[in-house]
C-alpha cells in the first residue's frame, strides 16, 4: 500500500490536517468565556476538575505567603524590640532616600532587605497604633492562627461542594418537611394566605435547586464547576474579609493555562491520529515485506554484537551513545537513591557521592513507621493484581474472538479499540469521576478497578490478538476432533500456548495500575485507601517535604515492579520475538 516516500508524506500531512480539523472545526454551542469553544473544551473541563480539587491548596499558597509575611514582621519586631520603632523606621526610610539619590550604594540583597524591613516596620507601627505595645505579639499570633484556620475551611468547603454537587438528599428531606408543614397548615384551616404563599415559594425554590444540582451533577462539562468554584472562593473571601492579592492573578493564570492547553490538545489529537495512521502503515509495510520476502536477515544481538568488518569508530560511537542513554536513565535513579540515604532532609547536595558519607537507613525506617506506607503497598498490590487478572481475562477472551471468529464489525472493532488509546487520559477524568461517584465507588479500591481495567484492556487485546494469530489453527481443529468444546479448546490449548503473551499482558496491566496517579488522586482521598503513587505525593507536606523519606518510599514503590519485570522478562523477550518462530 505505501510503497514510496510520496505516499508516506501524504499520509503524514493527512494525519495532521485531520487532527487540526477535528480539534478546531468541531464547536459545541456552549459558551466559554464568551467565545465558542472547540472540542478541547471537554479536556479543559476535566483539567479543571482536578484543579478545583486542588484549588483550595493553591489558595492555601497565598495564605502561606501571608503567614510568611507575618513571621517576617515578628522577626523584625524581635530584632528591634529594645529600640524605638518610630526612630528606626525614620532611619531606614532616610537610607532608602539616600540610596535613591545615589548617595549610598547597596547591592541587590541589601536593597531587598531594606525594603522588607521598611514594610515590616510600617506594619508594626500600625499594629502598635491599634493595639498598643503589649497587645501586638498576641494579635500577630491570632492572625496566624486565623490564616491556617481559613485555609482548612476553604479546603473542606471545596470538597464538601464537590461531594454535595450530585447529592440532593438533604434538599429532599428539606422539601419533605416543607411539604408536611404546608399540608399541616392547610389542614389547620386557619391558613394565613401569606404564610402559605411563602411556603409555596420556598418549595418552588428548593425544587429548582434540586433540578439545578441534578443537572449540574449529570453535566460533565467542567466549566460550570469552574464558575461555581469562583463563586465559592469569592464568597469565602468576601465573608471573611480576606485580602488575597494573588487570587485574581492566579485565576487569570488558570484561564491562560487552559487556553494554552487547548493548543496542546490539538497537537495531541493530531499526533494521535498520525500515530494511528503510522501504526497501520507500519503494519501494512510489514505485511508487504513479509509477502514479498524483502526482509533481510537481521542479526540477533545475542549471537553477534558487531559485524566483523565494522570500524572501530562505529563501535566506539555505538558504545558512546549507549553510555549516554544509560547515564540519562540511571542518573535520576541514583540521585533518588542517595537522597534516600542522607540523614537530614537534604534535597540538594554539592557532593557527587552516590552513597553519602554519613549514610543511614533512618529514612526507610521512618517511611514505614510514621506513615501508612504498608497500607498503601497493600492497596496498590490489591488494585494492581486485580486489574491484571481481570484485564487479562477480559482481553484474552476478546482477543480470541477477534483473532478467530468472523463477524460483522470485526475490523472496525479493532480500530475502535485502538482509537480509545488515542485520547489523553486526563480527558476522561471528569466523566470517570462522575460515573464512579454515582456508583458510590468514590474512596473505594473497587472504584479504581473500573478505569484501570478499561484502560489496560485495549492494549492487551491488540497484543494478545497478534499472538493468537500466530498459533496454528490446526491445533484447535485437532482439539475439536479430539472432543473439545470451543471453551475447552480455548482453556486447554490456546491459553497455555499463549503464556508468553499473557505474561506480557499481565505485566503491562499490573505496572500501569501500580504506577497510575491521576485517577487515583481524584477518586481516593482517605489515607487508608490510597495507592502508593498518591501516598507518595501525600508525603509531600504542605509546608515541608521530607525528601529523604519521600525518596525512600519512592524506591520502595518501584521494587515490586522491578522484581516482577525481572521475573517475567524471559517471557518478554520470547513474546516480542515470537512472531518469527514457528513450531
Amino acid at each position, binding site marked *: 500500500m505505501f510503497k514510496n516516500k510520496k505516499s508516506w508524506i501524504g499520509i503524514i500531512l493527512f494525519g495532521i490536517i485531520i487532527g487540526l480539523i477535528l480539534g478546531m472545526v468541531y464547536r459545541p454551542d456552549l459558551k466559554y468565556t464568551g467565545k465558542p469553544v472547540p472540542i478541547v473544551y471537554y479536556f479543559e473541563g476535566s483539567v479543571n476538575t482536578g484543579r478545583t480539587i486542588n484549588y483550595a491548596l493553591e489558595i492555601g499558597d497565598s495564605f502561606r505567603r501571608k503567614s510568611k509575611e507575618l513571621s517576617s514582621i515578628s522577626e523584625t519586631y524581635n530584632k528591634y524590640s529594645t529600640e524605638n520603632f518610630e526612630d528606626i523606621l525614620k532611619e531606614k526610610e532616610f537610607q532608602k532616600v539616600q540610596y535613591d539619590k545615589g548617595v549610598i550604594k547597596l547591592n541587590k540583597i541589601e536593597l531587598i532587605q531594606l525594603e522588607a524591613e521598611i514594610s515590616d516596620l510600617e506594619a508594626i507601627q500600625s499594629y502598635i497604633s491599634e493595639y498598643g505595645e503589649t497587645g501586638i505579639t498576641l494579635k500577630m499570633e491570632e492572625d496566624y492562627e486565623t490564616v491556617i484556620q481559613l485555609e482548612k475551611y476553604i479546603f473542606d468547603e471545596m470538597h464538601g461542594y464537590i461531594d454535595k454537587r450530585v447529592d440532593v438528599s438533604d434538599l429532599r428531606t428539606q422539601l419533605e418537611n416543607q411539604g408536611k408543614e404546608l399540608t399541616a397548615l392547610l389542614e389547620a384551616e386557619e391558613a394565613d394566605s401569606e404564610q402559605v404563599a411563602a411556603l409555596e415559594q420556598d418549595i418552588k425554590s428548593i425544587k429548582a435547586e434540586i433540578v439545578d444540582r441534578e443537572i449540574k451533577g449529570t453535566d460533565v462539562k467542567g466549566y460550570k464547576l469552574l464558575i461555581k468554584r469562583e463563586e465559592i472562593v469569592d464568597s469565602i473571601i468576601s465573608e471573611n474579609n480576606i485580602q488575597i492579592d494573588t487570587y485574581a492573578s492566579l485565576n487569570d493564570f488558570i484561564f491562560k493555562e487552559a487556553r494554552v492547553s487547548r493548543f496542546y490538545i490539538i497537537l495531541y489529537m493530531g499526533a494521535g491520529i498520525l500515530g494511528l495512521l503510522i501504526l497501520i502503515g507500519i503494519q501494512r509495510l510489514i505485511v508487504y515485506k513479509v509477502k514479498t520476502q524483502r526482509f533481510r536477515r537481521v542479526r540477533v544481538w545475542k549471537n553477534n554484537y558487531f559485524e566483523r568488518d565494522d570500524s572501530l569508530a562505529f563501535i566506539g560511537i555505538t558504545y558512546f551513545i549507549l553510555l549516554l542513554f544509560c547515564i540519562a536513565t540511571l542518573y535520576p535513579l541514583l540521585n533518588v537513591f542517595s537522597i534516600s540515604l542522607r540523614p537530614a532532609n537534604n534535597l540538594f547536595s554539592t557532593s557527587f557521592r552516590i552513597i553519602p558519607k554519613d549514610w543511614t537507613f533512618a529514612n526507610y525506617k521512618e517511611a514505614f513507621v510514621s506513615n501508612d506506607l504498608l497500607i498503601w503497598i497493600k492497596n496498590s498490590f490489591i488494585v494492581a493484581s486485580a486489574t491484571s487478572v481481570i484485564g487479562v481475562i477480559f482481553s484474552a477472551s476478546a482477543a480470541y474472538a477477534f483473532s478467530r471468529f468472523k463477524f460483522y464489525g470485526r475490523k472496525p472493532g479493532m480500530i475502535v479499540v485502538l482509537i480509545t488509546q488515542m485520547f489523553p487520559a486526563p480527558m476522561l477524568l471528569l466523566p470517570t469521576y462522575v460515573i464512579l461517584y454515582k456508583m458510590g465507588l468514590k474512596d473505594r479500591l473497587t472504584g479504581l478497578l473500573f478505569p484501570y481495567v478499561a484502560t489496560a484492556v485495549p492494549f492487551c487485546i491488540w497484543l494478545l490478538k497478534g499472538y493468537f494469530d500466530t498459533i*496454528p489453527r490446526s491445533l484447535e*481443529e485437532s*482439539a*475439536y*476432533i*479430539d*472432543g*473439545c*468444546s470451543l471453551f475447552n479448546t480455548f482453556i486447554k490449548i490456546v491459553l497455555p500456548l499463549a503464556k508468553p503473551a499473557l505474561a506480557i499482558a499481565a505485566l503491562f496491566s499490573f505496572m500501569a495500575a501500580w504506577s497510575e496517579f491521576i485517577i487515583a488522586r481524584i477518586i481516593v482521598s482517605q489515607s487508608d485507601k490510597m495507592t502508593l503513587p498518591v501516598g507518595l505525593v501525600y508525603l509531600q507536606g504542605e509546608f515541608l517535604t521530607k525528601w529523604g523519606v519521600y525518596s525512600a518510599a519512592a524506591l520502595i514503590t518501584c521494587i515490586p515492579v522491578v522484581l516482577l519485570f525481572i521475573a517475567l522478562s524471559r517471557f518478554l523477550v520470547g513474546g516480542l520475538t515470537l512472531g518469527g518462530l514457528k*513450531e
Partner: protein
Amino acid sequence: MAKVVVKNLTKKFDDVVAVNNMNSIVEDREFAVLVGPSGCGKTTMLRMIAGLEEVTEGEIYIGDRLINNVAPKDRDIAMVFQNYALYPHFNVYDNMAFGLRLRKTPKPEIDKMVHEAAKILKIEDLLKRKPKQLSGGQRQRVALGRAIVRNPKVFLMDEPLSNLDAKLRVQMRTEIVKLHERLNATIIYVTHDQTEAMTMADKIIIMKNGIVQQTGKPQEVYDYPNNMFVAGFIGSPAMNFLYATITDRMTLKGGIFELNTTDKVRKIIKDNNLIGKEIVIGIRPEDLEDSYFVQNIPANNTITANVEVTEPMGSEIYVYVDIEGVLVTARVNPRSILRSGGKATLYVDINKIHVFDKNTEKVYI
C-alpha cells in the same frame, strides 16, 4: 456401518469453487485414497467430512447419519493433519491421552490404550518427550497414535507422509496399511502422490479442480482411465500421449509413425465414425520395448526415433525418445544397448494402447 457417503457436495470460498458437486461412497472398512494435483480440493473435502469446514451444498453421511450439522467431536472420527498439529505443550503421552480424557475414559484404560498404540507404532520410548524433541517421522507416528487410541469409526488423513524422506515414507506406507488391516476402520486418505494412492488404496478417488474424475480400484483406474487426466496422473513414469490421425485403412498415423490397430479399436473407430479425425494415442512406458528383444514383429507396430536420454534403473532402462517434439518414455529390457544420440526402434504393444478424443480428452478405449 461406518460407510461415508457424500451427496452432491459443493464447497465455495466466496468465488472459488473448491469442491464441485461431488458424489462418492466409501464403504465400511475401506481404505479410500483421495488423490489429485495441488489445489484440487482434497483438503477441503476432508475438512468438510471432519466438520471443520461448513458445507455450502449437499449432504455428508457417516453410517446412516446425516452429519452436516453435527459438531466435529460428535462425528466419531479422527484426523491426522498434514502438519501433525501435535499439542506443543503436552508430552507424547498426554497428546495421545487428551481425546480419551475428554471422553472421560477411566485412567487405567487410557494407560492401557496409549501403551498399546505406542507399541504398535514403536514410540514407547518417546512417551515422556515433548513434540519439539521428536524427529519428523516420530511426530508422524505420534499423530497417528493420537488418532488410533481413540478407536474411531472413520480415520481422516491429510497427506500424513508428505514431510518424510523417501525411505521413511515407504516404510510408513506399509505401516499404515498394516494398521488398517488391524484396526478394521474406514480410512479416507488424502495425497497428491499417485504411488501412495496405488500402493495403499482399496479405492482411489481422483479429483481435479474440485470435480471427481474417476473412482475405482487401483488396477482398474490404471488399466481403464476415464480420460487423459486420469491416464496421465496415475502411473509412473506417466503415460505418453501422441497425436495421430485415423487413416482410411484404420491405422493411426503420426508424422513419423503409423500404427496398426486391433479389432477392438477398429470397432470403436467405426462406431464413433472417427475415420479421418485427429485423436490422441496413450501408450504406457511399459508397453514400449526395444524391438531387438521382440520376435516376429508385424509391420507397422514400431516407432523409430532419436534417443535423447537413457536412465538405467538396474531392473530396467528408461529410454527417452523424441517423437515429433514429444518426449516419450519407454521402459525397456535392461540389457538393451540403446544409447543417447542413437536411433531407437521401439515396439508398440498395440493391444494396450488407449485412444482419447482430442477435444474432450475422454477415452475411447
